[in-house]
């Protein structure tokens, strides 16, 4: 290995370890100041994932960095460690307060403020070497997202590492499933060749047992959120979402989800015993700003507004786990993933509009919140349509609020808080 590359590897490793150190402290703090089982499990599992990446790199074992969401069980079957830039990268950015650093790096690389801020964060993080140097970089194109699809080639050229683009269609048709299955198989073959590894096909039995358990727990969480009185909190579905992405087919994910189910059941029992009734049942139709969960706490405490469904986080489609057809199952799981369902085709049977309407209707929500990333063309193009459809077909008001989901600064949260306050005032008035 050339000296330059060795130096880069070390710099990246040292930078990444800084975020692991912060997560260690956060976890220690959480243990000393216990809140809920799931909250503690969340930080433990996240920390374990980060430790695993750190130890892998430290031991000189191969690491794969992936740009987007995908059921990464396929990598578990190769017994190779992977790091997700969306979820893991977001945690690095948050723990080390790198919002401005990554935004500046992306800008220097030629990206514009109007490009998706989440993808710019990932690019900036990679370019400023806060992500370990991968042995293979895998990029993909969730629901044909132009931003995330374009991220891979930019990163690949900057670091000159082996690279695979996992292609997919836009629609979850039979043709699309077959294509994705073929692409996943090619990716496995590429990884086997690059890393000198061999897929353990028998391992899928065990991996899918874990994935199926996660799926079962996910459906239970979704159902519990819809209960009366509402036991859910916004931070639950948000944390669930980010951790779920990191733990496909891993026991840590099961541990966390089980803790969350336990917490929800306990809260439901306690609320029922006390005869508590929430003031507002609120549906989260997209993603709550992950760095501003205190806003959610305020909504609950100040307005009695509780989350009764998270469409983009918990509205799973149907999955039949079949270890005899692992790649087909993985393709099916990809299209069943809530985020993929809500960011994908909007109209028609099985489209995002239908998924959102069903979830909102089933949860008997009084209102909906649609936080969208201002720089996301997928979300922003359908905001008006979604509001009109919710009003017309379900008679439910929807607050549409554009934010930069990566912006950690409190000023942004304060602006949103004012709008939320006004929204709940109007809701309260209409309830009288």
């Amino acid at each position, binding site marked *: 290995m050339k000296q330059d590359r060795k130096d880069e590897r070390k710099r990246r490793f040292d930078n990444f370890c800084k975020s692991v150190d912060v997560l260690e402290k956060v976890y220690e703090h959480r243990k000393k100041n216990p809140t809920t089982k799931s909250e503690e499990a969340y930080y433990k599992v996240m920390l374990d994932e980060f430790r695993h990446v750190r130890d892998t790199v430290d031991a000189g074992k191969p690491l794969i960095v992936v740009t987007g969401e995908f059921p990464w069980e396929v990598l578990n079957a190769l017994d190779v460690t992977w790091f997700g830039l969306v979820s893991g990268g977001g945690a690095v950015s948050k723990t080390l307060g790198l919002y401005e650093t990554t935004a500046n790096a992306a800008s220097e690389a030629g990206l514009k403020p*109007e490009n998706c801020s989440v993808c710019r964060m990932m690019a900036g993080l990679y370019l400023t070497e806060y992500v370990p140097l991968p042995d293979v970089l895998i990029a993909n194109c969730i629901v044909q997202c*132009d931003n995330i*699809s*374009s991220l891979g*080639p*930019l990163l690949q050229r900057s670091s000159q590492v082996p690279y695979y683009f996992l292609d997919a269609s*836009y629609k979850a*048709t039979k043709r699309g499933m077959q294509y994705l299955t073929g692409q996943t198989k090619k990716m496995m073959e590429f990884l086997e060749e690059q890393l000198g590894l061999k897929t353990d096909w028998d391992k899928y039995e065990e991996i899918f047992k874990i994935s199926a358990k996660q799926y079962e727990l996910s459906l239970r969480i979704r159902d519990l959120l819809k209960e009366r009185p509402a036991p859910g909190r916004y931070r639950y579905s948000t944390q669930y979402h980010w951790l779920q992405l990191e733990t496909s087919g891993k026991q840590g994910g099961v541990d966390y989800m089980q803790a969350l189910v336990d917490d929800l059941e306990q809260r439901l029992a306690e609320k029922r015993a006390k005869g508590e009734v929430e003031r507002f049942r609120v549906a989260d139709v997209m993603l709550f700003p992950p760095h501003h969960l205190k806003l959610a706490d305020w909504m609950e405490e100040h307005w009695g507004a509780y989350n009764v469904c998270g469409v983009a986080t918990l509205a799973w489609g149907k999955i039949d786990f079949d270890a005899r057809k692992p790649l087909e199952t993985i393709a099916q799981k990809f299209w069943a993933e809530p985020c993929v369902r809500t960011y994908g085709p909007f*109209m028609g049977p099985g489209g995002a509009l239908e998924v959102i309407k069903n979830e909102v209707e089933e949860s008997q929500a009084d209102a909906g919140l649609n936080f969208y990333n201002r720089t996301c063309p997928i979300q*922003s193009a359908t905001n008006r349509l979604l509001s009109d459809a919710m009003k017309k077909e379900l008679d439910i008001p929807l607050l549409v609020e554009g934010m930069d989901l990566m912006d950690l600064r409190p000023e942004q949260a304060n602006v949103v808080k004012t709008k939320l306050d006004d929204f709940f005032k109007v809701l309260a008035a209409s309830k009288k």
Partner: protein
Amino acid sequence: METLEKFRAVNRNFPDNSYIKDWKAAGKKVVGWLCIYVPEEVIAAGGMLPVRITGTDAGELSLDKANVYVAESTCSFIRNCLELGLRGQYDYLDGLAVSVVCQGCTRLSEVWEYYITNVPVIYTLDLPRNITQEVVDFYRDEILDFKGALEKAFGVKITDEKLLGAIKVSNETRRLMKGLYEARKAVEPEISGAEVLEVLNASNRMPKVEFNGLLGKLFQEMKGRKAYSSGSGTRVMLVGSPLNSVGFLKDLENLGFSVVIDELCTGGKYAFSGLVDEDGKDPVGALSKHYINQFPCPREMPKELRFKRIVELAKEYQVKGAIALTIRYCNNVVWSQPNLSADLEKVGVPTFVLDMDYGEPITGQIRTRLEAFLESIEGI
């Protein structure tokens, strides 16, 4: 040039023109398409007039209606298309066919379906990003489904024979277009970049047979002509986002640039994508093979294929610089530009990246920056 005036008449009031009016008056169908991966030959073979959905050529349009329905983070090209749809200027459409080349296109068809409810058929052709045989096979089936949808909706039978006929007509357009671009290789070109854009715009707004006839005449009229009074300006190429504004190119050329080549989807891509196989054995397969392997859109993978072809064109047309039109929120273009600029730089072609909105004129700051770029590449 008399024929150029005829093309101008086609474009002047677009989305309206006499060809579309006459077509509809004859009781025939019009199907709008967006963008270059939609095989217009299938539409034509069904006896319908394919019309490309764009904004107007006149320049910047007020987007009052479109901005109500989609946010600014949908690019201004798409919002221009939607604006015209919402104003009722595309009300003549009997169908709309969209390929999922970018989120803007995809979402446009969905918003159109919800709010502009008078289009009987809206069809989305799915399209992965790789340029491979698997995708050719995938897209062949997509085209077959699209053909079936048109047949069902309009009660027509699109036979292989009809498809082959439409392919031959479009191939003739491709040959003629290539000739138009070849003419721009000359040290003193016979036709300017702005004039070529007028021709290109018209090509997607009238029946191809008539278009081919007119373009043939234009070649005769061009002979021995000098497009630029000064002989030639500084030779540049355009890359990036869609462009229909003739005024923009006129202003650019008035500044002292000669736009001799472009790779825009509203421009040279048609000329530089080769021809569809005419052997007639499998016309749908031939269309799929052609469209997947055409001059790549910035969305396509691997992106280096597009970069390589752009660099080849830059050398072939001996340009001194490149101007990258990056419409804000045209994400595929913007993300690709840093690597493309680097590749052009390697062969001595500096790139000027121009952030703009679709239809935006060259004024104020943009003019000053372009003048500075011109001076820098001329070494003034």
